[in-house]
C-alpha cells in the first residue's frame, strides 16, 4: 500500500456515471457539470462547459423543451432542477455575447446545407469547425428556419438568433438566403461534394373537415410564419385555435398579441394528454386564453364575414398506438361557436420537393440510414424535422452535429465511427430511503412578465434569474452519478465508518461482507471521504477542478509573498454566499490578511488541511459554511468533530485552541463579515500576547 498521494488524488480522473439529465439530452450536454459551476458562482466556466456541448446555447436557453428536467431525479424528492432557466442565466451573465468563434479552412471539399433551421445551423457550425467551406441555402429572406418563422418572438428574441447567425458568418459560413433549392443535381454541378438536406416540416396537416378552405381559416405554420416575418395579419376579435401542441399554444398567445379579445383553444383530448409544454399552457391560461377540452370542429361555415364553427364533443376511449387515449366523438353533442378567425394547428409534416429525388417514408419524411444519415442518394445527407417529423430544437441541433461528423467521415473516406461512451449511464431511480433523507428545497423558477404586460407586445415572457436565486436553484442538484466510491478496495479495512457516517444511509455491506457504495444512490457529499481512516474512498469526480489541498497551497504561497499582517486562512463553502465573492470586501477591512480557501461544502475539509494551514504559517484558521442553505442538516457536526480533534493536537503543541474556529454563519453577508472581523481581532490579541511572552522569556 502506498502512502504517498494516491493517483486518484489528482483532479483529472473521472469515474462518474452519466447522470439521467445528460442521457436525456439529445446533445448529451454535461449538465451536472455546468449546474455545479453555476452553484459556485463560476458562471463563465459554466458557460464554457455549455458551449462545449451546444453550438447555440443562447437559443436552447430560451426554447429548449428540457427533456433533462423530465429525467431529473430531484423530481423524486420534490421538483426537478430548473436546468433550462439556469442555462439561460449562465448564457446571459457568463458573457456569451462576447465569445468570438474561430475556424480555419483546412479542406477543399465544399458542403451545401439546404435549409437553415437549427439542424442546418448546427451542421454549418460544426462543418466550419472541421474546416470545410460551407454554404447555407435558405428559401426565406432570413436564416433560422422554424426558429425564425415558427417560434414566436416572445419565446426567442430575434436578437438572440441574429447574434448566432452573425457568429456563423464570422467564421466564414456562406449564406444564400432567398434561395430556394430546386434540384440537388444543380448543387453537385456547382461543385459541392456533399449536401445536407434539412428543410424542416413546414406543411400543416389538414383537418379534413367541410369548410376548411373558407377565408378566415388559416393553418398554424402559415399564421406563425406571417407574424414572425413581420406581417400583422388581422385576426378579428374572436379566434379559435385547433390543436393541443406547442404550435397551437403559440398561435393562441400570438393571436392575443395581435389584438384578439377572445381566444379559444379547441382540443379533442384532455389536459393530461396535451403535448404542449406545461408552463406554456399555464401562461396561456393566465393571459386569458380559454381551452376547451374534448372538443373539435366538425364543420365550418362562413356567414357574413364570420365563421360559424360546428363543434363536436369527445370522450376518451381506449389507448391508441401513441399510448394516449383515443378520443371518441359523442353522438348528438354538436354545438356552434362563432369566430372571426380559425387557426388549425393539428400537426405538421415535411414537404420535400419531388426534384430532390429522395426516398420518402412515413409521414412524408426523408428516409435515411440511421447511422450514417445518408439518404438513398450518394453524398446527400438529411436530418432535422425533415427526417423525424416535427421535433424539438435540441433534437435538430443534435442531428446537425451528427451530420457534420458523418459528412466529414464521408468526405475523408473514413468508416463511420460509433459513438464512444466510456462511462456507464445511471438509470436507476433513487431508493425510498434515500429520498426520505434528502433535504427538501423548493424549486425556484425565474420570474415571468406579469400576464397583463405580456399580451401588449412580443417582449420575452420569461425574465432572467437574479444571481442569488440562480445559485440557490443550482444548489438543488443532487449530483447523480458523481458520488463516492471505494477506489482502493485493498486498503478498505471494512471499518464501517462510511456506513455509519453517511447522511443518506447509502453504503451497504454485501453478502460477502464487502462494503459497497451504490453509485446510483450516493449524492457526493464527501463526508465519508474525509472520515475514511484508510483513505480508500474518493469521489468519482472531484468537482473542484482543484482540490482543497491545491487551493490551500495556492492561497498560502500567495499569502507568503504579500503578507505583513498576521495571516488568517478561512475554509469557506463555495456554494451560495461565498460563491458570489462577497467576502472579498474583507481584504481591506480586516486587521489581518485573510486568505479564503474555497471548498465545496465544509464537510470536505479534512483535519490535515487545517494542520497544513497552521504549518504554513497561518496565525488563525476558520471554517465558514453556508449556514441554513446547506444541502444537508448536519454538516456542522462534522466540522465540529474535526475541529475538536485538531484543537487537541494544537493544545499539546502549545497553540491556543481559539486560533481554530468554526464561524457561525447564517448565510448573510454582513454578519459573516462581522464574525470574521471579530475572529481576526481575537487572533491578533493572541499573537500579541504570544510575542510579549517570548520577549519576557528572553
Amino acid at each position, binding site marked *: *500500500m502506498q502512502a504517498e498521494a494516491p493517483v486518484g488524488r489528482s483532479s483529472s480522473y473521472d469515474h462518474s456515471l452519466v447522470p439521467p439529465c445528460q442521457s436525456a439530452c439529445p446533445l448529451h450536454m454535461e449538465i451536472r457539470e455546468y449546474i455545479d459551476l453555476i452553484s459556485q458562482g463560476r458562471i463563465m466556466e459554466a458557460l464554457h462547459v455549455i458551449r462545449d456541448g451546444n453550438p447555440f446555447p443562447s437559443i436552447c436557453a430560451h426554447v429548449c423543451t428540457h427533456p433533462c428536467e423530465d429525467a431529473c431525479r430531484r423530481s423524486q424528492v420534490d421538483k426537478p432542477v430548473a436546468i433550462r432557466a439556469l442555462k439561460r442565466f449562465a448564457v446571459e451573465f457568463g458573457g456569451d455575447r462576447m465569445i468570438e468563434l474561430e475556424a480555419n479552412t483546412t479542406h477543399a471539399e465544399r458542403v451545401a446545407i439546404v435549409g437553415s433551421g437549427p439542424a442546418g445551423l448546427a451542421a454549418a457550425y460544426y462543418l466550419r469547425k472541421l474546416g470545410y467551406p460551407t454554404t447555407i441555402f435558405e428559401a426565406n429572406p432570413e436564416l433560422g428556419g422554424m426558429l425564425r418563422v415558427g417560434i414566436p418572438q416572445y419565446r426567442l428574441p430575434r436578437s438572440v438568433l441574429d447574434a448566432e447567425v452573425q457568429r456563423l458568418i464570422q467564421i466564414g459560413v456562406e449564406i444564400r438566403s432567398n434561395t430556394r433549392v430546386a434540384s440537388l443535381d444543380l448543387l453537385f454541378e456547382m461543385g459541392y461534394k456533399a449536401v445536407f438536406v434539412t428543410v424542416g416540416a413546414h406543411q400543416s396537416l389538414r383537418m379534413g373537415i367541410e369548410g376548411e378552405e373558407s377565408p378566415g381559416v388559416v393553418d398554424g405554420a402559415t399564421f406563425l410564419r406571417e407574424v414572425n416575418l413581420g406581417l400583422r395579419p388581422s385576426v378579428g376579435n374572436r379566434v379559435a385555435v385547433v390543436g393541443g401542441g406547442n404550435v397551437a399554444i403559440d398561435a393562441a398567445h400570438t393571436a392575443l398579441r395581435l389584438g384578439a379579445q377572445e381566444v379559444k383553444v379547441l382540443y379533442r383530448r384532455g389536459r393530461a394528454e396535451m403535448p404542449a409544454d406545461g408552463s406554456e399552457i399555464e401562461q396561456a391560461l393566465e393571459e386569458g386564453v380559454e381551452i376547451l377540452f374534448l372538443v373539435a370542429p366538425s364543420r365550418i361555415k362562413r356567414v357574413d364575414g364570420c365563421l360559424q364553427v360546428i363543434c363536436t364533443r369527445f370522450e376518451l376511449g381506449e389507448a391508441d398506438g401513441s399510448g394516449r387515449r383515443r378520443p371518441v366523438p359523442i353522438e348528438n353533442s354538436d354545438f356552434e361557436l362563432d369566430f372571426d378567425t380559425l387557426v388549425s394547428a393539428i400537426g405538421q409534416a415535411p414537404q420535400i420537393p419531388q426534384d430532390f429525388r429522395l426516398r420518402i417514408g412515413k409521414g412524408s419524411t426523408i428516409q435515411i440510414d440511421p447511422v450514417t444519415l445518408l439518404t438513398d442518394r450518394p453524398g446527400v445527407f438529411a436530418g432535422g424535422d425533415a427526417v423525424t417529423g416535427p421535433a424539438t430544437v435540441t433534437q435538430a441541433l443534435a442531428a446537425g452535429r451528427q451530420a457534420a461528423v458523418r459528412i466529414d467521415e464521408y468526405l475523408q473516406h473514413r468508416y463511420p465511427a460509433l459513438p464512444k461512451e466510456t462511462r456507464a449511464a445511471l438509470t436507476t431511480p433513487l431508493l425510498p430511503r434515500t429520498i426520505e433523507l434528502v433535504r427538501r428545497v423548493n424549486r425556484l423558477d425565474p420570474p415571468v412578465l406579469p400576464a397583463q404586460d405580456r399580451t401588449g407586445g412580443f417582449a420575452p415572457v420569461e425574465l432572467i434569474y437574479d444571481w442569488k436565486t440562480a445559485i440557490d436553484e443550482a444548489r438543488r442538484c443532487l449530483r447523480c452519478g458523481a458520488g463516492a466510491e471505494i477506489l482502493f478496495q485493498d486498503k478498505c479495512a*471494512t471499518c464501517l465508518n462510511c456506513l455509519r457516517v453517511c447522511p443518506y444511509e447509502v453504503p451497504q455491506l454485501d453478502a460477502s461482507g464487502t462494503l459497497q457504495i451504490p453509485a446510483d444512490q450516493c449524492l457526493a457529499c464527501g463526508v465519508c471521504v474525509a472520515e475514511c481512516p484508510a483513505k480508500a474512498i474518493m469521489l468519482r469526480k472531484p468537482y473542484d477542478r482543484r482540490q482543497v489541498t491545491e487551493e490551500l497551497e495556492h492561497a498560502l504561497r500567495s499569502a507568503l509573498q504579500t503578507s505583513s499582517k498576521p495571516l488568517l486562512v478561512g475554509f469557506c463553502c463555495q456554494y451560495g454566499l461565498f460563491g458570489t465573492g462577497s467576502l472579498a470586501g474583507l481584504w481591506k477591512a480586516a486587521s489581518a490578511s485573510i486568505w479564503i480557501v474555497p471548498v465545496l461544502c465544509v464537510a470536505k475539509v479534512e483535519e490535515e488541511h487545517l*494542520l497544513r494551514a497552521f504549518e504554513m504559517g497561518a496565525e488563525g484558521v476558520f471554517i465558514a459554511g453556508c449556514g441554513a442553505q446547506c444541502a444537508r442538516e448536519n454538516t456542522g457536526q462534522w466540522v465540529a468533530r474535526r475541529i475538536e480533534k485538531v484543537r487537541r493536537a494544537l493544545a499539546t*503543541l502549545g497553540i491556543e485552541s481559539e486560533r481554530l474556529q468554526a464561524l457561525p454563519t447564517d448565510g448573510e453577508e454582513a454578519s459573516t463579515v462581522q464574525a470574521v472581523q471579530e475572529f481576526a481581532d481575537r487572533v491578533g490579541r493572541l499573537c500579541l500576547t504570544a510575542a510579549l511572552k517570548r520577549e519576557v522569556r528572553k
Partner: protein
Amino acid sequence: MIVAETKPLDEIWRSIAPYSRVLILGCGTCMTVCGAGGEREVSFLADALRMSQARGGEHDHSLLEYTVKRQCDAEFLETFVDRSREVDAILSLGCGVGVQVVADRFPDLPVLPGNNTYFMGASSEWGVWDERCAACGDCRLADTAGVCPITRCTKGILNGPCAGAKNGKCEANKEADCAWILIYQRLERLGQLDKMRRYYPPRNFRVIPRPRRIVNKTQVSTGGNDGQVSV
C-alpha cells in the same frame, strides 16, 4: 479487534526527538478500524509534527509516511525494506503486537510506539469502543449467556452480581451497565436461570504462563519425498 489510541503528541515528539529521519508506519487492519493508526492517522500525525516543527523551529525531522496492511505479520513489512534504509527510526502506529514484530524485523533500527494499546473490543456506535474480552484463555461465555463477567464486570467476579448495582449500573462506574444484571436478563430470556444458581469456583490466573503460544501445526515427519504420509 484490538483497540488503541494515539499517544499524546508531545510524548511522540519527545520520543522521536533524537532521530532526524523518521518513518511513520501505519497499520491497515485493527488500527485503521479503531482510528488510531490507519493511513489517515499517519498523515494527520505527520502533518501535526511538521506543523509543530514549522512553528517551533527547533527540530528538523524529515518524516516519511507508510501504511502496511498488517504490522503483525512480518511478510507485510518486506514492502518497505528499501525505505527503512533511509531512516533513523520507525514510529509504529500499530498495536503493541505490531511494534514488536516491526522491531523484530528491523533489528538495527529503533522502533517507537506511537499508540497506547488498550484492549480487545467492539464498536457500539461510530467512534465509541468498549472492551469485551480479556483473553483469559478459559472462556465461560456459555455459562454467562454471552456476556463476559471478566471484562464487563468492574470487579471481574465469577459469581455475581455483587450487592452494589444501582438502577442497573455499576457502583464503581455509573456509566457502565452491571454485567451480572445483563447476564441475568439474558439467561432469563433464554430460560436458563439455573445457570445463575450454580457456583463457579475461582480461577487461578497465576498459573497462566506468559508469553502464551499456540501451536497449530500438524506434526508431520519431513523425511522422505516418496509421497508417503506418516503421522
